[in-house]
């Protein structure tokens, strides 16, 4: 389980996160939702130890160490490999540094996304860059996958392809925390929603319970909260 406990973060004088607390379980898709600038990406960066923060974050009951990067991975919305590298070189790099690299799954994902090993990263389209990021992240045998806006700025076909990954065996029983504006693409796959506003958790709910008990979709709840 990922436990985020009273996490606060300031950039200069601006408060980005103000006592954010939530949990994300293995085997569940947790979605962080909010308008731009509410602290979704900062929350993911804090979990990954990519920005300092106040509060406590535990991964399977332990604070983040270098070994945690074999158990949790972050897929940002920017390329994380050198532009001059080819897709194959990026895969070799990952294989070299991570014990949790699963070459078999990497090749499956390569095929799934129709990426070519010899393609240079600098020459990939935005959609293919997102797919490459996803391929590199999901090829690690990790417990948790954190995704920042995986559908941002990419065409409808690539979005469908990426959304299909969530429903496939490629995600298996991992815990996923995702931030997205394109909620419609994956709404049916989300287990839990954390609504953020002004750096705080505004509402937290289980999507199935919400549907069954109140008959509301995630988008309905978002409208209620953000348009109120």
């Amino acid at each position, binding site marked *: 389980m990922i436990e985020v406990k009273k996490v606060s973060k300031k950039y200069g004088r601006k408060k980005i996160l103000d006592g954010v607390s939530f949990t994300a379980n293995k085997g569940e898709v947790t979605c962080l939702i909010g308008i731009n600038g509410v602290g979704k990406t900062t929350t993911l*960066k804090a979990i990954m130890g990519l920005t*300092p923060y106040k509060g406590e974050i535990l991964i399977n009951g332990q604070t983040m160490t270098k070994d945690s990067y074999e158990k949790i991975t972050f897929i940002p919305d*920017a390329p*994380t*490999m050198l532009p001059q590298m080819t897709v194959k070189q990026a895969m070799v790099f990952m294989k070299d540094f991570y014990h949790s690299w699963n070459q078999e799954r990497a090749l499956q994902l390569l095929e799934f996304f129709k990426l070519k090993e010899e393609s240079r990263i*600098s020459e990939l389209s935005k959609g293919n860059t997102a797919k490459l990021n996803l391929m590199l992240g999901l090829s690690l045998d990790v417990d948790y996958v954190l995704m920042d806006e995986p559908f941002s700025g990419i065409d409808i076909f690539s979005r469908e392809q990426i959304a299909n990954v969530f429903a496939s065996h490629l995600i298996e029983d991992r815990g996923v925390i995702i931030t997205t504006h394109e909620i419609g693409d994956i709404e049916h796959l989300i287990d839990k929603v954390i609504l953020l506003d002004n750096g705080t958790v505004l509402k937290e709910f289980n999507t199935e319970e919400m549907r069954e008990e109140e008959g509301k979709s995630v988008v309905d709840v978002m409208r209620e909260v953000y348009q109120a």
Partner: protein
Amino acid sequence: MMRYLKLVNFEINRFSKIYLTLLLITLLSQFAGVLIVTKSLLNDAKEIMLEEKLSEVAYLSEYGGIDFTHIANTLWFLGPIALSAVALIFYIFLIWYRDWFGKNTFIYRLLMLPTSRLSIYLSKATAIFLMVLGLIAWQMILLPLENALFHSSVPEAFLNMEMSTSSIAAANGILMLIIPSTFTQFLLSYGIGLMVMSILFTAIMFERSFRMKGILLGLLYGGVAAALFLTPVFIMASEIFHFYSNELFGLLLTLGIIVTGLSIWLGSWLLKNRVTV
């Protein structure tokens, strides 16, 4: 340890094209310098002999012969050394900032590797240090070859003296600095270089951690570190106390180790705990 070595290898590979270009420029410029400067010196000598109607013996007794120091002090020879030094100083900054800026944010991947942040910090420092040593080794290989070419291009009568590689290095201020003749000189030249690099790395980490405020903190840290290292020199200059040269060397060495160790610790601490991607 393996990941650290892989990172060092990775960092060296990333700079390899520019590095090989620097090695090639050094080779071409210095060899061209030997041929061009030697030819020019011999032409000058012939012109003077013709104008002043001097025999070879009279010319040599009046103006003297030539030796390799005539080559070693030219831009052909020192230019590529200066270029390499500037490139590596520039690279101290580039090795960090290129991972943060531009279209590809490789720093995400680098900081998410399952290895300690200290390994990442040290791998970049080691890569630069190895590249410096590589350039020096290249110069030490080239020097006797250039010397041999020089000897074969100059008539024996015009040669001032046969200079060995070490005497060429000792006769030139810059070569003396980069090719030390004693272990003490090696410690001074390369120890100070290592210390300066660790201070600059720490200043960069301050900037990456605190942005605008970090620039001031980095400058302040650089000033404090330099002042700490030079304390014995200041004490001597102000005539409060006099140190014998071996005492001064021992103090500088000790303070250098302390400043380098402190910079590495602080830099890697900032990278682990304060840096924001």
